[in-house]
């Protein structure tokens, strides 16, 4: 659990006082270095404004890069690692920087500005309010759409804290902030702070309270344990005090970033970078496994880089960078997205070379994928990336992500195979790849073939399900990919499982070539129902069933109009995990065609697996040559 200090004062440098600005900048750097050394994993630069916000107040806080920090403190990494080990923080967790705005409010009109429609507030990660009188405080607790209520305890409070107000604020998910640096600085302020903050802490019992320094200089920053102990002076128990600088801060950040990056709290849009190496062996979805809910985008400093070289700047961060949704929202047509809009290519708000991935389904709860599951018995659980609704897919597919994609995106699919406990098997394979991936696909297909070869005889009935997921890849346009990871577990009566990971990507970029509508058919629907009757409960494969009911109609692009459905096949085998990257022919029908002969050949016995195995590579290869006859 990381520790956060969410109030590091930032004064925007006025052009008049150049000297002050350099001093301020060096102070900021020193504070950040000290915070990193003391073991904090995240900080927020706090900018305070008073009164009415203007357009000048948009976020312009420059985030510090690793190189600037290392210039000042070249031996940062050893000290950071030392303290992190002592605190129990993992060494490799990135150091995050956030931006925060504190608005001082004293009139009702200013309070009205604090709603979610305010565009200036959206440019900051965290929004805090500092009420200066009773009305402002009441309004902040009950109606204002902020993350933090920050009260200046160091002087006599201009208003009374009332318990129902405090309770209302907690219920809405607002956090109260107590700053500790005034305790250290001045003796008289110490008195005031302790007496004022004690009341708040007695009422809240530490719930929804965060502790932070508002350190004017580096001498006022204290380590996380020391801060927790200072809070015990105010009446908090040690456990709650520790939570106040770690868990509460983290949930605050999750909420704040969700509000900022997610569209209607559900969909997170990210762009996939075109700079990924084309021969990377790691499937795309592996990066998605590292989805970072409190990532601050380019503010994250990966500390592994420090160890490599002192003067290195941060490498191309592998963390996903969320799209600033507001800038995109403005460009969205009101009637919704059409594919033809994407052809023209829309601009993105971030650089083309930033590496981003787009996955739409991640924030959605897993229950979404269950919806497509027709089998009630099969508790298919989607590992990490539940399939999105058709509606959301259409929406998200059409959202433009980047304007420049140099290289074709690679789509990696791994196939999952799940087995039920009774021994019926399901194998889901998704195959869509660009031609670049042909070698890897073949290799993986061969691998999967070998897996199947090792399958033992299947006693129970098998049914093959084929799901195709349409993939459409457009080099030049934005790309939305949804990766589905499916786990196929197969086991016989001895309950041995096989797992084949399958990922399906759905992409809907248009292409220059003729547009054709591809409809996906569910071959396996009947088979699925058949299978479900026989399968036992311990089936883990949501995605196959999701795809069964999923319909996508996409317009193909010039390059690759591929429709890929997920294919699920049942097999019984030993427990194995195979990542299957398989090529998908450019036309959807080829895939269907490929599967049909496979199905036709398959018996209800286990031998089908062998035949499937041997045919699968061939089918894949031959499918590329086949013409769509669908």
């Amino acid at each position, binding site marked *: 659990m990381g520790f956060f200090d969410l109030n590091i004062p930032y004064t925007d440098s006025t052009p008049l006082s150049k000297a002050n600005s350099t001093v301020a900048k060096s102070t900021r750097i020193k504070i950040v270095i*000290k915070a990193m050394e003391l073991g904090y994993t995240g900080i927020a630069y706090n900018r305070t404004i008073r009164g009415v916000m203007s357009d000048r107040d948009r976020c312009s806080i420059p985030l510090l890069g690793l190189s600037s920090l290392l210039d000042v403190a070249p031996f940062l990494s050893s000290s950071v690692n*030392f303290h992190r080990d*002592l605190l129990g923080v993992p060494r490799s967790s990135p150091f995050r920087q956030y931006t925060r705005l504190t608005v001082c409010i004293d009139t009702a009109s200013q309070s009205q500005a604090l709603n979610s429609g305010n565009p200036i507030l959206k440019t900051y990660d965290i929004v805090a309010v500092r009420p200066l009188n009773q009305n402002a405080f009441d309004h902040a607790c009950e109606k204002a759409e902020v993350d933090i209520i920050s009260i200046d305890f160091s002087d006599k409070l201009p208003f009374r804290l009332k318990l129902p107000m405090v309770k209302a604020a907690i219920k809405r998910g607002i956090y109260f902030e107590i700053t500790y640096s005034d305790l*250290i600085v001045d003796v008289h302020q110490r008195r005031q702070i302790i007496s004022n903050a004690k009341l708040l802490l007695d009422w809240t019992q530490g719930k929804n309270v965060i502790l932070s320094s508002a350190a004017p200089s*580096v*001498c006022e*920053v204290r380590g996380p344990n*020391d801060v927790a*102990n200072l809070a015990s002076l105010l009446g908090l128990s040690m456990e709650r005090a520790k939570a106040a600088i770690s868990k509460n801060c983290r949930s605050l950040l999750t909420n704040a970033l969700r509000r900022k990056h997610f569209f209607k709290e559900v969909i997170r849009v990210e762009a996939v970078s075109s700079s990924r190496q084309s021969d990377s062996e790691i499937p795309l979805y592996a990066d998605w496994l590292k989805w970072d809910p409190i990532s601050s985008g380019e503010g994250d400093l990966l500390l592994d880089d420090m160890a490599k070289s002192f003067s290195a700047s941060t490498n191309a961060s592998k963390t996903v960078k969320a799209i600033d949704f507001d800038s995109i929202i403005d460009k969205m047509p009101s009637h919704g997205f059409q594919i033809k809009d994407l052809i023209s290519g829309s601009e993105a708000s971030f650089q083309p070379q930033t590496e981003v991935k787009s996955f739409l389904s991640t924030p959605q709860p897993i229950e979404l994928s269950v919806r497509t599951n027709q089998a009630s018995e099969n508790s298919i659980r989607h590992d990490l990336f539940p399939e999105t609704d058709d509606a959301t897919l259409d929406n998200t597919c059409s959202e433009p992500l980047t304007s420049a994609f140099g290289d074709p995106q690679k789509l990696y699919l791994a196939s999952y195979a799940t087995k039920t406990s009774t021994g019926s098997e399901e194998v889901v394979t998704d195959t869509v790849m660009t031609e670049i991936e042909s070698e890897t696909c073949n290799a993986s297909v061969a691998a999967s073939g070998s897996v199947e070869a090792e399958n033992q005889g299947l006693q129970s009935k098998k049914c093959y399900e084929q799901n195709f997921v349409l993939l459409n890849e457009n080099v030049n346009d934005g790309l939305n990919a949804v990766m589905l990871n499916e786990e196929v577990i197969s086991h016989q009566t001895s309950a041995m499982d096989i797992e084949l990971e399958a990922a399906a990507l759905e992409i809907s970029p248009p292409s220059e070539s003729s547009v054709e509508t591809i409809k996906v058919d569910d071959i396996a629907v009947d088979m699925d129902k058949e299978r479900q009757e026989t399968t036992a409960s311990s089936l883990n494969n949501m995605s196959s069933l999701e795809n069964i009911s999923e319909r996508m109609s996409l317009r193909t692009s010039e390059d690759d109009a591929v429709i890929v459905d997920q294919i699920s096949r049942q097999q019984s085998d030993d427990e194995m995990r195979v990542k299957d990257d398989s090529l998908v022919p450019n036309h959807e029908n080829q895939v269907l065609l490929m599967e049909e002969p496979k199905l036709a050949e398959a018996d209800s016995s286990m031998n089908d697996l062998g035949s499937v195995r041997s045919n699968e590579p061939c089918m894949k290869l031959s499918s590329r040559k086949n013409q769509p006859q669908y």
Partner: protein
Amino acid sequence: MVGFKNRYMVMEVLLDPNKEISGDDPIVVTQFNISKAIKDGILVNFGECGLASSLGSFQVKYVNPITKLCVIRASRDEYQKIWSSISMVRSIGNCPVLFNLLDLSGSIKACKTATLKCDELKFEQYKLMVGACLSADVTQHMQNCLEKIRILEH
């Protein structure tokens, strides 16, 4: 069984955080000046009675001036107050300082192992910082300090 319980805090003293990284220290931390600074802090924050009740068990057991590590003993009843006062110490003499707790233990044995570990790690960092001009007597001094840790007793 001993009914009287203590707490041993392993703290590091960060001298003059505002200054740029350089090899020499503005002051030398000793048992005396750390102890004095902390006692002044307790007096200001907790008053005469607070100081008196903490003074019974309060002692700075070990100080390493090279790695700026110190071990402070306090009674189990008063250790939180003493710890808060230590956190609020702003300067030793003229030099602004920053105390950071590394480890808190209830027995001298656990404290000794923690101190040894922290001291060695901090010495590695010190060697990195100093670089080439590591003198032999510094190393010797370091060995003496490590010996002192091993013979610490309550």
